[in-house]
């Protein structure tokens, strides 16, 4: 197989305040190869975005703290890099697309300047060359280069997200992290943007971490999936593993709670209860208060992450105890 570009091991991130400690990311591990894409799926508060911020070195400190683990990118542990070197990587080799295109662009800079800014920062080139590169990037994402001198408010939501993608890809990063890139967009525009991301990812051979709660979007874009719940990966496998052979009760529940557009259903299946407060996580399996299959062992003991096939792992007591 291709070379491993990212290796996250046992990542733990907390937010510590005077009143409470929020256990946002607990023991998250995954790897990514060059050109591969992984989907981090989960509900609000599962720790998906914090994981991404951890990789980018952008966890707000204080109150955020990376308390354990390692993030190897191209053989270097990002957690041990000084900020100066991290700044070279961030935006250059790793870049990020944020959820809300309306707020992630600077309203008082033209889109051309915003793309050129990142190019200038990471390359020793002249302003004129950077501007040329900005115009090329705009064309790449389907915006006429003539709009280089327009301001963000002159663009629609879908167009703004294209600009954000142009900024993220301007330095041909090796890893792109996209945090809910299409959630704020209409479905026909979402289809356009996903198609664009797929095309550019293939062209640049970029690795992709896609953070989303939309299982449909993951099915379109990703090779691998990690289902995140209460700061832990509870199921991990290839797209095929997760979509055709899902094992964890939560993963099954997540799929079942979606209204099926191809079938008639009287009433939706529901996962009872709500996501636990990350400042006050249950003991044992973090999902046990909502699980239909929970036993006493689930309520007290930490749950091992069990490998059930070469590519597929589950964090659930029902699958033996052979730890990964």
């Amino acid at each position, binding site marked *: 197989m291709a070379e491993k570009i990212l290796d996250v091991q046992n990542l733990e991130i907390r937010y510590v305040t005077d009143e409470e400690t929020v256990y946002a990311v607990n023991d998250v591990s995954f790897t990514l190869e060059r050109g591969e894409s992984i989907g981090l799926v989960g509900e609000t508060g599962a720790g998906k975005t914090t994981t991404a911020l951890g990789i980018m070195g952008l966890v707000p400190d204080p109150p955020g703290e990376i308390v354990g683990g390692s993030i190897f990118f191209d053989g270097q542990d990002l957690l041990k890099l000084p900020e100066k070197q991290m700044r070279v990587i961030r935006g250059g080799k790793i870049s990020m697309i944020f959820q809300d295109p309306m707020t992630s662009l600077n309203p008082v800079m033209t889109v051309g300047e915003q793309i050129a800014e990142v190019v200038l920062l990471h390359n020793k080139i002249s302003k004129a060359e950077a501007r040329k590169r900005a115009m090329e990037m705009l064309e790449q994402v389907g915006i006429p280069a003539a709009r280089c001198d327009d301001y963000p408010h002159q663009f629609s939501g879908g167009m703004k997200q294209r600009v954000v993608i142009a900024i993220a890809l301007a330095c041909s990063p090796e890893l792109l992290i996209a945090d809910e890139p299409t959630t704020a967009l209409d479905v026909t525009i979402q289809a356009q943007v996903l198609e664009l991301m797929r095309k550019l990812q293939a062209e640049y051979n970029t690795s992709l971490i896609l953070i989303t709660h939309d299982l449909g979007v993951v099915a379109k874009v990703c090779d691998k999936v990690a289902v995140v719940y209460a700061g832990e990966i509870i199921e991990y496998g290839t797209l*095929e593993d997760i979509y*055709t052979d899902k094992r964890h009760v939560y993963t099954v529940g997540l799929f079942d709670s979606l209204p099926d557009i191809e079938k008639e259903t009287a009433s939706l299946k529901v996962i009872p209860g709500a996501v636990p407060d990350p400042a006050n996580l249950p003991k044992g399996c973090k999902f046990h208060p909502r699980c239909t299959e929970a036993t006493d062992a689930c309520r007290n003991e930490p749950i091992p992450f069990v490998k059930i096939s070469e590519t597929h792992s589950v964090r659930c007591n029902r699958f033996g105890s052979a730890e990964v």
Partner: protein
Amino acid sequence: MAEILRVENLKKHFNTRKGVLHAVDGVTFGVQEGETLGIVGESGCGKSTLGRVILHLHEKTAGKIIFNGEDISDVSQAKLKKLREDMQIIFQDPYASLNPRMTVGDIIGEPLKIYKKCESKEALQKKVRETMDVVGLAERTFHLYPHELDGGRRQRVGTARALILDPKLIVCDEPVSALDVSIQAQILNLMMDLQKERNLTYLFITHNLSVVKHISDDITVMYLGQMVEKAKSSEIFAHQYHPYTKALISAIPLPKFNAPDNQIILKGEITSPINVTKSCRFAPRCIYAKPECFNSEPELEEISKDHFVKCHFVREINGL
């Protein structure tokens, strides 16, 4: 079954500096009591404005609104207050639609106070607690403030507030789009149960097609202020005739492994609803568009029983 709501050629235009914005432009439909009409479309298609005009939260520009057999197009303020007992709304954003300085109990009980429904404070509290029970809010949340609740519970508060006066019609404006899928399923089930128990009529406004299919009896697809297709829910998902509806449904990413990739990717984006011309409004993005589409506006035509489509070439495109 009686028709509880009928709108005829309803229009809402806003005057802007650039010209007249046609937010809702000639919408006609009827809803049977106890049924759900889903109104689907993308941002800016006028679906929220439509819901608001029906409730008189915006004044209409032209057209008729008939509720319960009575023409309510032009009613006095006093009459309107009376009407609103029967017509309620659940808003999209459970974070913004609850007063942060009122407790859950006060928020849900406020309509009772406004309509002087209860003789005593105890009676009011009793009614509030009953309604909280109906929507599945634990009694201990009575004295809590909205910020102490999660999104799903907040949306239950909004639902309880809409229900407490026992309305006949509820306009639901994207009631689940701010919620996580597992919570979304809980709220959708709740709404459907309540509908059965109380014979409620819903006008369900959303951009989420799988949600609308699940909850609606009839579906109306809107584009730039106009209805482009209307049919029974099962019919529209089996046969879409309008090119826009086809693209819209094909664009839904399915949560399936190796789902067939037959997406129709539309070019461009929704055009401006300001100063529209007599033409098919979808023509600039339509793959089948012909010169005629840019010069004359198609009629909403009944293609098969109860299935209406607004397209000049609907028969050619679909081989009918």
